[in-house]
């Protein structure tokens, strides 16, 4: 367990956190501001990865793949919102759960029909194929790119929410939706574009995740579950919560999976450690979530409601 191994895993954790942030930011806004339970966010992530893979296959260029993913995600988000989601805002959470669950089943099947049940290759940008020397560790530059993209998106979101008129409307919509509508803002359109924006972020996550994971039907669900854990621990509706939550969960999960089995082997006998190690590591983030909920049910960085 050398310093370089620890550093590598730490960076991997931050990279996972970066991906989780891209997904959590959009989802927490949809949950918090539009009070809409969107279980198909993972499907948007999946479709983004597929759009990117298709774009890369046709052109051999990551830039084209990115445009396909982001553009496709935006269009798909608009379509889904217009056709289904917008009709469900006033319905109970149960109905929203059912609708989005149905959409998950539908999109998984669509992916199976269009691209088959096995995983599809997603190319990465040639410029980022190598490694970078970081404090003595040779770290893949593509993973650093992922972290970079998340930081840029985070900064952009912060700027947008706290410094622009749209951001003000979004913040106002979070605490006082009636006033926003009374101010003459077209709330229907605001919600549509907010949802589509969240979809775009999810698709961006799919684009970035594609090269380092398996692009296959059903890939969205495990990611969705982790995103839900991030949002619950971070605080529903809070971008800050999404950021810190994503980083914490990403690091805890990665470092835990890497080192917990090793640490258990020091204390317990080999067979027990071998059985319990991976199992315990896989549920570390859920135990963390349970602890946070036990102490602060509203999350670590909850949004204050006036």
């Amino acid at each position: 367990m050398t310093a370089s191994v620890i550093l590598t895993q730490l960076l991997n954790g931050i990279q996972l956190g970066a991906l989780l942030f891209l997904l959590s930011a959009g989802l927490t806004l949809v949950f918090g501001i539009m009070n809409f339970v969107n279980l198909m966010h993972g499907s948007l992530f999946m479709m983004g990865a597929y759009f990117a893979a298709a774009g890369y296959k046709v052109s051999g260029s990551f830039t084209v793949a990115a445009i396909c993913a982001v553009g496709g995600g935006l269009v798909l988000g608009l379509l889904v919102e217009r056709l289904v989601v917008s009709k469900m805002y006033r319905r109970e959470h149960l109905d929203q759960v059912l609708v989005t669950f149905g959409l998950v089943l539908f999109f998984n099947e669509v992916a199976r029909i269009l691209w088959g049940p096995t995983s599809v290759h997603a190319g990465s940008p040639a410029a980022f194929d190598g490694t970078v020397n970081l404090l003595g560790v040779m770290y893949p530059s593509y993973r650093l790119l992922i972290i970079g993209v998340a930081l840029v998106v985070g900064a952009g979101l912060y700027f947008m929410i706290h410094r622009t008129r749209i951001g003000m409307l979004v913040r106002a919509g979070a605490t006082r939706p009636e006033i926003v509508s009374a101010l003459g803002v077209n709330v229907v359109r605001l919600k549509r574009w907010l949802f589509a924006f969240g979809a775009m972020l999810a698709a961006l996550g799919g684009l970035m995740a594609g090269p380092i994971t398996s692009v296959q039907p059903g890939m969205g669900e495990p990611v969705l579950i982790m995103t839900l854990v991030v949002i619950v621990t971070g605080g529903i509706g809070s971008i800050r919560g999404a950021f810190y939550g994503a980083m914490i969960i990403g690091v805890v999960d990665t470092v835990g999976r890497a080192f917990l089995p090793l640490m258990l082997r020091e204390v317990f006998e080999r067979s027990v450690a071998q059985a319990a190690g991976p199992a315990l590591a896989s549920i570390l983030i859920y135990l963390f979530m349970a602890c946070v909920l036990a102490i602060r049910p509203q999350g670590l960085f909850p949004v204050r409601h006036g």
Partner: protein
Amino acid sequence: MAEQLSSRIRRHWLPIVLLGLLALLPVVAALLGQSYYVTFATRVLVLAIAAVGLNVALGYGGMVSFGHALYVGLGAYVVAAMSEAGIQSGLAHLGTALAAGGLLAVLLGLVCLRTSGIAFIMITLAFSQMFYYVIVSLKRYGGDDGMSLPARSTLLGASLDSPVAFYYLVFAVLALALLFVASMARSRFGWVVRGSKLNARRMAALGYPVLRYRLAAYVLSALICVVAGVLLANLTRFASPSYLQWSLSGELIVMVVLGGMGTVLGPVFGAIALLVLEELLANAHLPMPFGADAMVRSHFMGLIGIFIVLMAMGTRHGLAGLANRKAAS
């Protein structure tokens, strides 16, 4: 006396007819020479029991739990693990599964019920997935592939290998579960649970410790799902991680809503409707152009997805509501 009996029968005609048809099913299947129907029907009834369980928490209690597959899977894996350890008694399987499931439900319920709304839904989903990941990572219990049972549990020493005998066992359990729910719905406990669903704040102001009753309803609902899991493992002679998957939780919710929430028979109607629909689509041999029916057969879950979307966007009262309205008019 006779008058009382005939009016009672008229009032309860629907459950009597339904249970009667289900009781006769193996006989009809034998006459038609289609014994496969018995196995399929057993599966429908087992999942109906799980839906009846979920209905206690969701339909009556208003708790939208997206994690009830956890309890079904737990029941199944307890049977498989104990079988592997050499214990074959069905009652031992059931007792252990109920104890483990009950304890887990209390612990999880205490954590989850501190939240409400969107957070509650997500947390129940997250915890049930947590157990999915735990089971999948335990190589001893088959990991991704699941584990098979050498034989079905024995009931008081007798074997349950015969499909028809097993069907009637499941049928009896379902009937018991329905009787319990019907009794509970009219009881003091049922009223408190229903009141808490309608207005928890008022119930607290009236003096009810709402959390305690909600937790009890959640645990009861989990225990019924555990029973379904025990039966499921015996039916398929297999414990699969898919029994723990959120897609099963989702399908159970669909059954409860489709059949009519907060009604005794609703979950049974919902289970029958959804599973029969899936079976029809999966085996559809229709004269469709471009071999489209082959596509329907291999991708029927996509159509089910659309069906669920349309159902959720439309009706709220489900099938049992329709039947009641017809009976009333």
